[in-house]
């Protein structure tokens, strides 16, 4: 077990270097000149372009640029944006907000999704099953910006129940609606996934045995059936947390949440390679650690799963 975790942690290093290089290279593969649009309708003064090119090593070959960046990163410095702001400061401002938003979304999608999945999975075909099927289909087919905008205008502007935008240091309460919007798509998937998994395992031998032993139905479902059925759901939720943190661009835009998604999006547009790489590096770490966490959780859920 310990060896397994250690091996997995060591694997992070090549994955980390590979992804950061790919990201760095890709940002620069996007055609365009970072200083072409910076001075409005007029071209930037030559002296300005020259100064900036020198400051950000833009004349160096890509690989040299990347290693200069990496050396800087290992000394704990994320670098500066073109407008002179420390990237570490940008990340420090945006990360807590995004983590909070992702958590709210994750909790909402897990609780509602799993509950809906269990209920429909146990009861099988019927009115409730059809209702969940239709509503999840509906959620899956709606683009996030539609859900977000409708909820914002309806709950915020029309009914005045929520604030239409989220402050710079939001509370969990403020993030409930944005979290719901962000998690809505995955919520539908979680419900479907749980339902299918429950249906499948309902007829498994071990469940029949448990009933035959005379166990209470609640115990059969809660301890035996649910634990095994949760494996695919946990896998999905684990990777989804990573996706939620990076993919909240639309939701963050609709509710003006100053998080990671919007930051990355803007940085890509303005060709701020350092900002993109810095943030994506952190996202990669989250993904890798979440995957590790999910893998370890398998053993908790199903003792038959062995490591090493």
């Amino acid at each position, binding site marked *: 077990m310990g060896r397994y975790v250690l091996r997995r942690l060591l694997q992070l290093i090549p994955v980390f270097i590979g992804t950061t290089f790919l990201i760095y290279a890709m940002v620069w593969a996007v055609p365009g000149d970072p200083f072409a649009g910076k001075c409005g*309708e007029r071209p930037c003064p*030559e002296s*300005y372009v020259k100064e900036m090119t020198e400051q950000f090593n833009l004349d160096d070959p890509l690989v040299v640029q990347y290693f200069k960046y990496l050396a800087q990163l290992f000394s704990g410095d994320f670098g500066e944006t073109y407008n002179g702001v420390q990237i570490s400061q*940008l990340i420090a401002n945006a990360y807590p907000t995004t983590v909070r938003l992702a958590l709210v979304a994750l909790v909402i999608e897990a609780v509602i999704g799993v509950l809906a999945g269990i209920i429909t999975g146990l009861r099988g075909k019927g009115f409730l099953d059809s209702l969940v099927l239709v509503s999840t289909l509906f959620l899956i087919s709606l683009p996030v910006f539609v859900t977000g905008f409708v909820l914002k205008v309806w709950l915020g502007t029309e009914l005045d129940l929520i604030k239409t935008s989220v402050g710079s240091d939001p509370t969990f309460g403020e993030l409930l609606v944005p979290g719901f919007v962000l998690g809505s798509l995955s919520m539908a998937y979680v419900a479907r996934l749980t339902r299918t998994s429950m249906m499948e395992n309902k007829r498994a031998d071990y469940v029949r045995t448990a009933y035959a032993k005379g166990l209470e139905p609640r115990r059969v479902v809660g301890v035996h059936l649910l634990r095994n059925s949760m494996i695919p759901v946990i896998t999905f939720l684990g990777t989804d947390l990573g996706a939620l943190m990076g993919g909240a661009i639309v939701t963050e835009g609709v509710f003006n949440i100053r998080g990671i998604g919007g930051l990355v999006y803007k940085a890509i547009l303005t060709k701020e390679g350092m900002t993109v790489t810095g943030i994506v590096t952190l996202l990669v770490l989250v993904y890798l650690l979440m995957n590790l966490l999910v893998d370890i959780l398998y053993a908790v859920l199903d003792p038959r799963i062995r490591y090493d």
Partner: protein
Amino acid sequence: MRKGRLAAMLAAPLAVALLASGCGGGGSSASADTVTVEWGEPENPLIPGNTTEVNGGNVIDSIFSGLVKYSPDDASVSNEMAEQITPSPDNKSFTIKIKPGWTFHDGSPVTADSFVKAWNYTAYGPNGQQGASFFEQIKGYDDVNPADPDGASGPQEAPKPTAETMSGLKVLDPNTFQVELKAPLAIFPTMLGYSAFYPLPEVFYTDKDGFEDKPIGNGPFKFDSRSPNESLTVTRYDEFKGEDKAKVGAVEFKVYDELDTAYQDLVSGNLDFIRQVPVSALTGDKWRADLGEGAQEKPGLLTQNIAFPLYDERFKNPDLRKAISMAIDRPTITQQIFAGSRQPADGWTSPSVEGFVPGQCGEYCTFNPEKAKQLLAKAGGFDGTLTIITNGDGGHNEWSEAVASSIRQNLGIDVQYTPTPTFSEFRRQANAREFTGMYRTGWVADYPNIETFLTQLYRTGASSNDGEYSNPAFDAALDKANAAPNVEAANKLYADAEKLLANDMPVIPLWTQPVQAGFSTERLAEAKATPFRKLDLTSVTLKQQ
């Protein structure tokens, strides 16, 4: 089960470590005396000479005061820090006397030296300041900022500057300095309110990084705090010596990515001011119903045009350009796309600018399909596809489609709208002279005089003359206007120069854009938007609670 427990014990702290980072606490609370304003992240550090875009400019304008200021109502020019600006008889040199007793926010005095040193710093090439070119009229500019012989992208390096200061700037006494220009320019004092001409305190030169983190100016507000990508707060500077003192305690500039979001916030009372109403709210005058008294409209200093790449052989014939202009149904397009919120343009400048003359474009900017067809025939028709190029990220798609279809229908030629993905890519093509079709141009005035719409855009070889238009008669007309004895005479002569553009039609004027801003009447009693589409922060007053 043993393995499972162990796994759980490992998993739990990992989960906690991951999630803990997100659970910092503490809420931000704005005081009742703070006004919140819609804003965007500035593109450069907040140094006046390095800020040429509007977001940074908004903040810079609140914490700095220039020699002259522009009225928030009609952009008329009056002295701010300048006591007197005396031109020489030939308008080639100006003696500027500043009001004594002003101080920067750190307590140091504002002297003639504060201006001269700041201007020299901005103009000096190796400092790489965006606003450097604003000083190109001053004598000695070419010594401190020599041009790169083959442009920034060429292999040759720009020569080293031979001087560190411009020879045209002289400090006469602590409160007086003299500016000598390369050539006469009657409207020079009008330009002095632009942010590149602001003074800088001594501390800037000794601690640049510190200054970037916490800019120190001489304006009605002083910098308080900034949270990058979220907000920036300025507070009232009580020792401000100018006439327009701030009436509110603090202003918080709030970063928004979507204008629609800011608008929703304004309507539901979470925001006090937006500089621009989104197109979605203009439809059916929704914004007037939503905002009531808070809906503000005034002529702006912005134009929207379509330009021709005159370096492309196919566009060399002026009759073709006129034909295209006359085939565009401006009134219908402005009505249908912008709900009547833009005015069809009949010239190359904006109605709210000093020296504006209506109808400069005459019949060539009037919709006339018959005449357009005749002109097209006279020009020998147009082969192939005519493209309209705009950046796809700036909300130009709808009107570009409409203009394309208007030309297609009325001239019977194939017209296509071809967007480029981003503004930056669009500008790269413009700078590299890569356009193969008509392209969008827009211009926001830097200072309120019609000259700002002419020199930079249409003079031979000017920095923003992307279409490479060149007409010696037009250049000569500009020279004549620059050398006029006073501003009124200069304005008349600039208008004469503008009239020459009608014959050549290097750029088709489409419409001018009024400033449509909004403020929350729940909290504010008064808030003025300037013709530059900024909030005039000193005019803001809160409602009595």
